[in-house]
């Protein structure tokens, strides 16, 4: 295994109490899983779901706030992964991040179709292309980064944090965030750039991301 397994907020290896974190187990044998998906083995899809299904469902529920829709979107996510696994680099790709990118795009499509996202929403097709997840940074496969990202988010001024969360979880463009938060677009851009720099700085200070 490449990283510890977090179960109900506790790391199995050290017993250290963690914040409640729905982080999926990501292991070295993901590459074997991809190879089996590419061979279209149904059991590989079951294994993929068992490994990442809860994480994908939680993200869907957080974004669309409807359990029925979340279930539909999870199914669509795995269908897309099933149909597109052939484009994935089994040796160098990271399945979990790719799956989350697909899931997020499904949720954004859903929100857009229901008018909860406006016409200014940017297109996300590039963000789930398998090539983006080749040689994914090793730290993405370690729960430490998630913990650091959460800590960095917690340390942001509330408005900056809200802007980041609106961007990620609601899929809002900066213009939409400006409208939503009733702030000038320039202010939103400044907040988000400051937030990015602070988060990168906080995480770099812990040695995970080079600043």
């Amino acid at each position, binding site marked *: 295994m490449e990283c510890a397994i977090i179960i109900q907020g506790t790391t199995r290896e050290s017993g250290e109490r963690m914040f409640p*974190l729905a*982080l999926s187990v990501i292991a070295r044998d993901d590459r074997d899983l991809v190879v089996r998906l590419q061979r279209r083995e149904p059991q590989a899809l*079951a294994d993929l779901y068992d490994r990442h299904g*809860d994480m994908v469902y939680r993200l869907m529920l957080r974004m669309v706030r409807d359990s029925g829709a979340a279930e539909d979107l999870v199914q669509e996510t795995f269908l897309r992964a099933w149909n597109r696994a052939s484009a994935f680099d089994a040796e160098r790709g990271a399945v*979990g991040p790719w799956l989350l990118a697909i899931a997020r795009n499904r949720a954004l499509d859903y929100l857009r*179709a229901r008018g909860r996202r406006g016409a200014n929403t940017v297109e996300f*097709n590039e963000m789930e292309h398998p090539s983006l997840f080749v040689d994914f940074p090793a730290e993405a496969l370690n729960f430490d980064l998630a913990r650091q*990202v959460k800590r960095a988010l917690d340390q942001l001024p509330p408005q900056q944090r809200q802007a980041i969360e609106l961007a*990620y979880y609601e899929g809002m463009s900066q213009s939409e965030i400006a409208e939503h938060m009733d702030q000038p677009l320039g202010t939103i851009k400044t907040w988000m750039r400051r937030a990015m720099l602070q988060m990168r700085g906080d995480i770099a200070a812990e040695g995970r991301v080079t600043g």
Partner: protein
Amino acid sequence: MTCEELKPAYLMYAMGTMDEAETSEMRAHLDRGCPTCTEGLRQAHAMAYSMGALVSGPGAPRSLRGRVMAVAAPERRPMRTAFRWQAWALAAACLALALVPAWLWQQQSSAWRSREAANATLLASARASEESLRAELAKRTAGSAEAVPIYALELERGAGTPGEAPKQLAIPQGAAAIVLALPSDIVRQASGAELRNSSGETVWTVSPLPVSDADSTGLSIPAARLSAGRYTVALLAQGRKMGQFRFEVVRR
């Protein structure tokens, strides 16, 4: 823009929330092969991934696993079972009506109708993978001058994958129409579709779109509308493009 100027925008780019002008600048910078920004973006993707993985809450209901596994279920059945003649005859009449634009339906010959109904059923009822679909169609249409080619298109949202060469669709002489098989998960969210040539002229539209429970939904396009050249088929929702696919028609 310089790497230092782009650095604060890595995560916004990774999340897809930059404005179009800034996105273009970032893309142009990356296209020049900047190793610093490429690495920075990979890390930004890792951070974005972490935000997705951070969400806490209840896990998925147990019943969902079975639904997800149903995605792979059709491939467990032999293709022959999925294409039994009796099932075809019953399903074809219903599904073809849902899958074919009515105006085209009225204009085609009875032989064409029959063939399209069969092909539409092939798409809708078999839930076949793209590869299986191609293999089955090759068997069914071999040697026929009136064959209706079906092209399974991996439709992308937005502008599609940049830099990718358009897929070539070879349309045989005598083909009355072609069927574009599109992923139903995107089609279901769209209200219409349009086909434009390389000059940007609309050569074909359909609205509303057929509804299908299958993985793929077929759109029939009269072959007479397609000369050799490049085209874009786009799905529309609320007046804007949900997704599109570029292809090149090659007459033979």
